[in-house]
């Protein structure tokens, strides 16, 4: 045979193999414990804060709390203008952020050529997700409130928050599109589809689950944003509702509510926590509890929608 090969190392004795394994398994156990403790720190902190707020706030959650305007008397104060304001602002945010974000994401993934310019755009978009929200508030103040003249209104707030969550929507769209297997794209093109047909009939429908998840997560963040809304001038004591979108005279809907002054949930909470009376602190806790529930509900909706829309997808 060929030149002599070095002898194999002597096999370990059975006893020392067992000791080695036992030592390694001890480290398995230790790491498991460390991981669990780390998890507990996060989970228990959140649970403690939430429970504290719930205990303080739940007694205050009567139906009148949701239908009353804020008032100088703590017992009569409610969050009507706040939750209506939050809902209307979220409506504008979603209407603006979704088409823009999805279109931008589709363009970057399917149409743009991979060169230096698109790389720079990509980096900028992901960085935008980390810009402090107060900076968006300053931008909005200069651009929407003064330059475009939308004033301190629901429209300005909705546009500001739309800009805030745009990077999230774009990134979610791109990730969802990237997860579509190349084989499906090739099948569509091999049948003679143009790029637009492939995008409209396959790419966007199959990534809708991921896109929607990104949109709702973005909105769950936006609903709690306070700094940009304060900067553009949402008022803290609003005892009226914006004009209704539905009117009794033709054409039966109105956009006047877009230009109305307003307030949102986080600002109402901020207003109440700034007051010394303990009763207002309780109101703030109750409002906080409602806000967390709204956020959890939106996340739950995202999970359910993702499950429903992904039912036919097998990748």
């Amino acid at each position, binding site marked *: 045979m060929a030149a002599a090969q070095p002898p194999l190392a002597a096999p370990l004795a059975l006893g020392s193999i067992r000791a080695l394994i036992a030592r390694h398994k001890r480290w398995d156990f230790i790491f498991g414990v460390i991981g669990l403790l780390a998890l507990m720190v996060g989970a228990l902190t959140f649970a403690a804060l939430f429970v504290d707020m719930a205990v303080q706030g739940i007694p205050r959650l009567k139906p009148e709390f949701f239908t009353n305007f804020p008032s100088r008397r703590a017992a009569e104060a409610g969050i009507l203008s706040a939750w209506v304001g939050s809902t209307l602002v979220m409506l504008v945010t979603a209407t603006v952020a979704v088409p823009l974000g999805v279109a931008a994401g589709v363009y970057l993934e399917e149409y743009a*050529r*991979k060169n230096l310019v698109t790389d720079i755009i990509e980096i900028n978009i992901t960085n935008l997700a980390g810009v402090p929200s107060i900076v968006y508030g300053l931008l909005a103040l200069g651009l929407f409130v003064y330059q475009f003249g939308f004033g301190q209104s629901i429209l300005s707030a909705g546009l500001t928050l739309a800009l805030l969550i745009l990077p999230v929507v774009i990134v979610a769209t791109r990730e969802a599109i990237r997860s579509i*297997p190349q*084989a*499906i*794209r*090739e*099948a*569509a*093109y*091999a*049948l*003679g*589809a*143009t790029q637009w*047909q492939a995008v409209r*009939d*396959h790419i966007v429908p*199959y990534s809708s689950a991921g896109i929607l998840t990104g949109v709702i997560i973005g909105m769950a963040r936006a609903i709690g944003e306070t700094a940009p809304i304060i900067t553009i001038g949402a008022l803290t004591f609003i005892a009226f509702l914006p004009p209704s979108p539905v009117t009794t005279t033709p054409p039966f809907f109105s956009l006047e509510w877009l230009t109305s002054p307003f307030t949102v949930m986080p600002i109402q909470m901020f207003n109440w926590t700034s007051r010394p009376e303990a009763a207002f602190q309780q109101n703030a806790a109750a409002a906080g509890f409602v806000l967390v529930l709204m956020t959890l509900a939106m996340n739950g909706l995202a999970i359910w929608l993702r499950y429903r829309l992904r039912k*036919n*997808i*097998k990748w």
Partner: protein
Amino acid sequence: MTPATDLPLKAEVKDLSFYYGNFQALKSLSMPVHEKKVTALIGPSGCGKSTFLRCFNRMHDLYPGNRYVGDIRLHPDNTNLLAKTVDPIEVRMRISMVFQKPNPFPKSIFENVAYGLRVRGERNRRLLEEKVEVALRNAALWDEAKDRLKDLAFNLSGGQQQRLCIARALATDPELLLFDEPTSALDPIATGSIEELMADLKSKVTILIVTHNMQQAARCSDYTAFMYLGELIEFGDTDRVFIKPSKKQTEDYITGRFG
């Protein structure tokens, strides 16, 4: 190379070379494709047979950095499929492809088969249903699928999914059908049913099939082309190539001296 017989040609490849960037994957291939016959491309892995096949429907255009040199002429109108003036989408409307791994859309069986027709703007419900039925019958899937047309295509077995992909490719009445190793991901029984299908189909449409399974080529094809490292080594009647190969490389490959 001169055609093996005087039978009508569906396509002619003339001095085709293909470059992935700077790498030359195909070296000046010339070959006839006879009408309503099965032509098989065989050769070891990496010889360029799939690359060659994908030139026919301009699939390489989907990725940047590729370059064609030479002609593929489609008859009867003698169009050069590779010309820059010819729209790849027009080419793909005339030539259909079935891929190695079945790749149905995550839609219903009906919508999968109908998609090619929808792309061409067909909206008449009646016409779509008729053409889908014809395509599924030609793909030997109608009996199994007729009661479940609204079911998700993913719920079919692997062999059924591949037949669905064949039906999808047939629905648009292509002039040339390209098969890229269609049975390599399937079990022997499914493979047998696809091979039977090909025997029926060739009377209706010209077929060009890439296969790494030599026995499949010997069983199913009328003409065989043997490729090696980007070159066309030998082309001819399947029986002749397998029984009396004229090149030593062909003989070595066929007798299994290398693979």
